Every structure is written in structure tokens, then in C-alpha cells.
């Protein structure tokens, strides 16, 4: 079964070299259906040519499934079978690393036509969290982030206004969000002063989204972590790192959520928090079911990805009444036990591009990645598809601010991006993720016992870690 071969160092390759051949090279880019058709041919590809890509290189979009698991399954299939197409692979930051670890992606750090300067630019200017999920254990770069994704807390200003909050609060929260405690009070207050169905909606179904993201945020914002110090252990070494899910701050995070759902009178809840602000339904909600009531004005607070900002913030929905702030926190970074935790942490999403090591056109593929790194391409992506630029500095420019809807909330997004925390993705993460989701979801439920669940989870994670 084919793996990546490091012999890809086809050093002599330059753009000119490809050019000299006078032959068209057609590359296949497996990517999201969003890129199909005119979007690519008319709007995005021309930008590449404007930014140094030879006209002899043509990129065809191979639209695959948008559902991330399905895409991963496809790649696993293709790469294991050693297929040479597609040349460029669009990869979830949540599962790029296992492919790297298995040598199934081309090492860009060793690619002849991907100079050190480029690598440095990625390392220095891109969101750190994103870059960390595109690198191998040896620190080499295997993928170039195309766009990142950070959840934020979105809210309906109307309800908060009638609860006595005002624009100044909103402005402040935009970059400097609040503690969970304050959050619960604000939400409760707004619920009391409005006739609204739901207070706070988020996603707590037993699925990947809970372990990678929603719960990861709750936990990290309490200063907790799955595997001890994220700076050291986030991506391994598997089997040789602490497992810290049974620490008190993790348990507290669960108790806090239990309070949100079941009220502080229920077992295993926290007193200082306002309870009953989230419906029990969150326990079976994923993104869309949780978003719908919010977009429709039936909820006050809602945690979701930037795509939801675009929808809820559009004119026919909440429009300007949509407020956005970074995710609230329980502990500040200083108070938090581990680095990278505490404060308005945001789970990292987003997608990278990597090169198929079996491709017959690796050089040309690298050229394409390089052209995609141009600012103009990133802006265009933001404008056309609403995908955030992967560099914090591009979020502060006027061009970015002019992008409809999303342009209004760039500051919040930047803060989120700077506090982003990747999931601890390793080859065993899928197994760990489902255990985490199960235990956490179980602990959230009415009769859940956080302490016991986390002790169990620790044992389960230990078993997984040790078996790998």
C-alpha cells in the first residue's frame, strides 16, 4: 500500500521550467463543491494566474463530499491505493495530521520549489493553531492552511437591549468577552425580560463536534485539557502523555454546562451560575438544529462557526441585530493551569491544502499552493465564499472589513483565531473522540455524574493511548 515517498525532492523545478515545456499541465484539486463551476473558473482561478501561476497550469476542481468524514474516507481510500490523482487535496485541519504521520502527504519543507521563505511566512504570519495542524512531528510543513474556522458566541442584540444592555456593552464584548458566570446572568436576564423560547443554544450531541469543539472550549476555558499541557502534548506522543480529563477544572466545566441545562438545583451543578438557560435539546443538537432557532429569533445566545454569522447576520434574518463575541471563559489564561487554555478559547476548524505524494505533477501542484498563498486570493476567497483569511493581519484591513456581514465581526473573529485551540488530533483521536463525546454527553444528561464519567473516560483514554 503506497505511502508518501520522500524522493519527491525534484529540485530543479521552477515555474520557468514548467513553462519551457510549453505543455499544459492539468491538475486536479479535490475540494469542496463550493469551489465548483464559475466560482472557480471565473472568479478564483484567474487570481492565481495574476499571482504568478503559469497559464500552462490548469486546475480542475473535483468536487467531493462536504461532509468531512466522507472526505476523509475518500482520501484514505485513494492514498492507500496509491492513486496519482487528485494532485492537490483539500484537507480538514482536524484530520491532516494522521495523514502526515502515515507519510501520505508530500513534505512541503523538502519540496524544491517551495522555498524556506514561504515556510517561514506560513509559520510566522498564519494563525498558529492552524499551522500546528499542518505540520508533522518533525516540524516540517505538509500542508498550507487555506482558511481557518473559529466558533464565536453569537447573540441577538434585540433581546439583550430589552434586558437593559446597550451598544457599548456590545462593543466591549466584541473583543473582550465575558466569563461564563456573567454570560449565564446576562442570558438569564434577557430570558426573563423577553418572551423567547431558548436562552443559549449550542451543540452537545454525542458526535465529533462535541469532543473536538464545544466541550473542548468549555474545558479549555476552565483551564482544563485532555492530555495535560497542550503545548507539549497536544499532538502526542501517544501513550506517553498525561491524561487529565479527571481534573477538577474539567469536571467543573461539565458541572457548569449541567447547570446551564438542568438548573442549579439538579445534582452536580454549580451554584454561582444561572441555570436553565439552555434547552435539554442541546444534548441531541448538532450545528444546524441548534442554529435554526437562533437564526429565526427564538434564542438569545448561540455558539457556532462563522458560516452561521453569514446566515444569521443576513438582512432577511437578524441583520445588524446579530452580535458576535469570542467564546466566554471561566478562567483567564493566567488563572488557567495549562498554557493555551483559559480565556476566550475557540476550537479550531478550517481546511488546508496538501499535495498528493503520488502525483505526477507535484511541482506544478506546489506552484498552485504558492499562488493560493497570495493575499489577493485569500481576500477573494473571503469575499466570494466567506472563508476567513488564514492570517490575522488580513482580518484588520479595510478590504476585509468591506466584506458584507462578516466584515462587521472581524475583530471578534481575530480574537477567536488568536485563542484558537486545535483538537488533539493523532491517529488514535477518532477512537478517543467518540469516547469523549459519549462520556461528556452522558455526563450532561439529567442523571449524569461528571466525576464518575471523567474517571471512566480517563481509563478509556488510557487504554486507547496504551494500545496504539
Amino acid at each position: 500500500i503506497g505511502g508518501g515517498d520522500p524522493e519527491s525532492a525534484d529540485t530543479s523545478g521552477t515555474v520557468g521550467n514548467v513553462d519551457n515545456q510549453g505543455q499544459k499541465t492539468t491538475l486536479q484539486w479535490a475540494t469542496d463543491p463550493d469551489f465548483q463551476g464559475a466560482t472557480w473558473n471565473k472568479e478564483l482561478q484567474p487570481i492565481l494566474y495574476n499571482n504568478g501561476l503559469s497559464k500552462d497550469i490548469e486546475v480542475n476542481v473535483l468536487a467531493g463530499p462536504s461532509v468531512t468524514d466522507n472526505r476523509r474516507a475518500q482520501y484514505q481510500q485513494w492514498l492507500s491505493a496509491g492513486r496519482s490523482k487528485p494532485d492537490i487535496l483539500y484537507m480538514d485541519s482536524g484530520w491532516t495530521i494522521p495523514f502526515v504521520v502515515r507519510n501520505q502527504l508530500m513534505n512541503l519543507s523538502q519540496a524544491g520549489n517551495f522555498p524556506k521563505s514561504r515556510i517561514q511566512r506560513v509559520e510566522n504570519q498564519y494563525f498558529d493553531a492552524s499551522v500546528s495542524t499542518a505540520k508533522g512531528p518533525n516540524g516540517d510543513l505538509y500542508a498550507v492552511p487555506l482558511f481557518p474556522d473559529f466558533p464565536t458566541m453569537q447573540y441577538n442584540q434585540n433581546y439583550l437591549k430589552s434586558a437593559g444592555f446597550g451598544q457599548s456593552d456590545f462593543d466591549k464584548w466584541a473583543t473582550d468577552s465575558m466569563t461564563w458566570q456573567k454570560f449565564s446572568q446576562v442570558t438569564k436576564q434577557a430570558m426573563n425580560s423577553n418572551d423567547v423560547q431558548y436562552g443559549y443554544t449550542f451543540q452537545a450531541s454525542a458526535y465529533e463536534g462535541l469532543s473536538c469543539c464545544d466541550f473542548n472550549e468549555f474545558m479549555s476555558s476552565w483551564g482544563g485539557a485532555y492530555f495535560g499541557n497542550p503545548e507539549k502534548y497536544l499532538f502526542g506522543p501517544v501513550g506517553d502523555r498525561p491524561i487529565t480529563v479527571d481534573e477538577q477544572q474539567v469536571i467543573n466545566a461539565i458541572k457548569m454546562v449541567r447547570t446551564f441545562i438542568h438548573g442549579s438545583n439538579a445534582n452536580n451543578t454549580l451554584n454561582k451560575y444561572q441555570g436553565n438557560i439552555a434547552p435539554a435539546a442541546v444534548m441531541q443538537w448538532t450545528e444546524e438544529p441548534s442554529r435554526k432557532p437562533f437564526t429565526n429569533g427564538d434564542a438569545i445566545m448561540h455558539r457556532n462557526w462563522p458560516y452561521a454569522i453569514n446566515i444569521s447576520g443576513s438582512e432577511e434574518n437578524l441583520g445588524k441585530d446579530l452580535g458576535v463575541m469570542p467564546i466566554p471563559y471561566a478562567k483567564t489564561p493566567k488563572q488557567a493551569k495549562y498554557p493555551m487554555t483559559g480565556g476566550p478559547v475557540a476550537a479550531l476548524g478550517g481546511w488546508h491544502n496538501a499535495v498528493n505524494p503520488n502525483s505526477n505533477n507535484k511541482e506544478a501542484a506546489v506552484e498552485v499552493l504558492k499562488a493560493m498563498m497570495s493575499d489577493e486570493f485569500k481576500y477573494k476567497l473571503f469575499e466570494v465564499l466567506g472563508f476567513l483569511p488564514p492570517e490575522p493581519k488580513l482580518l484588520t484591513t479595510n478590504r476585509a472589513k468591506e466584506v458584507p456581514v462578516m466584515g462587521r465581526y472581524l475583530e471578534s473573529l481575530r480574537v477567536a483565531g488568536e485563542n484558537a485551540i486545535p483538537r488533539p488530533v493523532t491517529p488514535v483521536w477518532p477512537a478517543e473522540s467518540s469516547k469523549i463525546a459519549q462520556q461528556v454527553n452522558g455526563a450532561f444528561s439529567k442523571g449524569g455524574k461528571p466525576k464518575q464519567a471523567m474517571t471512566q473516560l480517563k481509563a478509556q483514554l488510557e487504554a486507547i493511548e496504551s494500545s496504539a
Partner: protein
Amino acid sequence: MSTTDEGVRESKRSGPYVAAVRWMENLSDTQFAYLLLTPVLLLLGLIAFWPLLSTFRMSLFADNLVGSEALGEFVGLQNYVALLTGERDALLVRPFFDPATPFKSALTVTLIFTVTSVFFETVVGFGQALVLDQDFRGRRWIRVAIIIPWAVPIVIQGMIFFLLFQPNIGFLVDPLQNLGIFSETPLSNSVDSLIILIVADVWKTSAFMALIILAGLQSVDRSLYDVGRVAGATKYQQFRMITLPLVLPSVLVAMLFRTIGAMRIYGLIETVVGCNTVPSLSCLVVTTFRGSRMYGTSAAIAFITAGLIGIVVSVYIVKYADTETGG
């Protein structure tokens, strides 16, 4: 002309075709049987048996999560042992078998699902087939109506039931909760979810049963009912003594394949509740296969699943063989 006529005709056609036909006609029953089975066996050999053998080989190797090679070293039956003793449960989405939590371990969930859904599908499918077997105006449209669920793709079937039981979308959660049937979040509750899955499966695949049983009903020689009627059989007696025994082989085939299908349930789970909530045997196969690239484990679970199915369906096989021999 007369007598030699056929002879002439026969000899006019000659050559390899006639030779081949003659050769085939002269084969003994056994030879002929194997000849006719050749294409099927070739196809299955290439597309089914060979891959299965190769997968079986995979099941004898350790998982390799990290390296570039898909498989680790040869470990013999260790994967099977680890799975059956529960040693590998940690790496599975849910334990393979855990009597303490029957609704959260793959084997028990699968068996509960299979027994219940096949039972209801048989009853409902038989009922539908009996209705469709009647002659009435508009029967064709009723038939469309009954077939429709079977034609619905699993993704959509999943979506239908997923949305029906979403608190802010569907309309079934509150009433069912008020009746005390379901919890307020049925899709995060293993028991409720299993019930929903069974209902969804019965909805869709009863049509499968109905179609096969209907075909069986249509093949019954109508004059036997005349005999039955004259002999004084009530409708029910006709059903029990004539219809039922004569369609029994069809019913068994339908149940056999539904049982196999139910024991491999996956797609519906994935689209309605997810394998975390309702783990089936196939869930274990797919999650280890797609998620973690635990190919050895995955292959071993696949073979264990197949073995379990084999054990369960042997009940039918015995019954089926009975009806075949006219017993």
C-alpha cells in the same frame, strides 16, 4: 416432407452452436448444475470471495495506526481473541459485548434491533402483501404508495426521522414525551433512539417483505382456493391451510434477507443518531475502518459479524430446507 422434415431442419443448423447445445444437453444434472453456476461463481469469486479472503488475511495482522504501511505484523487470531474477550473494547466506539449496558454494546443492540425489526417487518409486510393481493380499483397506486419507502435512499430516510425527532423542528418529541414514552431528547437516549431506528426501519423495509411475499401470493394456483372454498374453508382457514404453507418459502427468503440486512444495520444509525448513541456491529466495522484505519481489527469484526449472522440465519436455512423438500 412430413417425417424427415424436422430432421432436415435440425441438420440445417449446424456448427459450433449446435455442438455446444448438444454438449450441454448431454451433461448430467450435476455437470449441468455446475456449468450454470459457473458464471455466478466466477463473478462472486472475483468480486466477493477473493476480496473476502484478502480481508480475512488482513484480519490476521495487527493494526498500524501510525506508519505508512496499512497493517502491522502478523498476529494470527489475536485480533479475534482480543475482540471476543473485550480487550479491544477501548478502541471501539462502544464495547463489542457488555451485558451491563445492553443498549450500548454492539452485539446486544444488533440483536435487539434485528429481532424486533424483523418481527414487525414480517407482520407489516405480510399485511401489506395481503392487501395488495386483493383486486380493487386503484390497486396500482396503493402499490406505489407501499413501495415508496423502500425506494427512499437511506440518507433521506435518516433525515426524515432525524428531523421528526428534533425538538425545535419535528413535532413528535413533545407529545411523545408528555405521554411518557420518550425522554425529552430521544436522539441522545440509546433506548429511545433504538426504538426510533426500529420504527424507521420497519417503515422503509416492510415494503421489501411485502414485495417478496406478494410475489409468492401471486404465484399460488388460484384453483386451490376453489377447492378450499368448496371444502368449506373460511377465509382464515384458507389462509392458514393453503396460502400460508404455499408462501412460506417466500416469507422465509424475505425474512432471511431482512435478518441479514438488519444485522448489518449501519447507514440509518449514522444518519439518525450516530454510532455513539446506538452502536451496531457494522458501526464497529465502519468506525474502525474509516476513522482510525484499524484495518486488522475492522476486518476481524467484519468476519465475526458474518459469523454471527451465519449462526442466526442457520435457523432459517434449516426451515427453508424443510419447505424445499416439501416437509
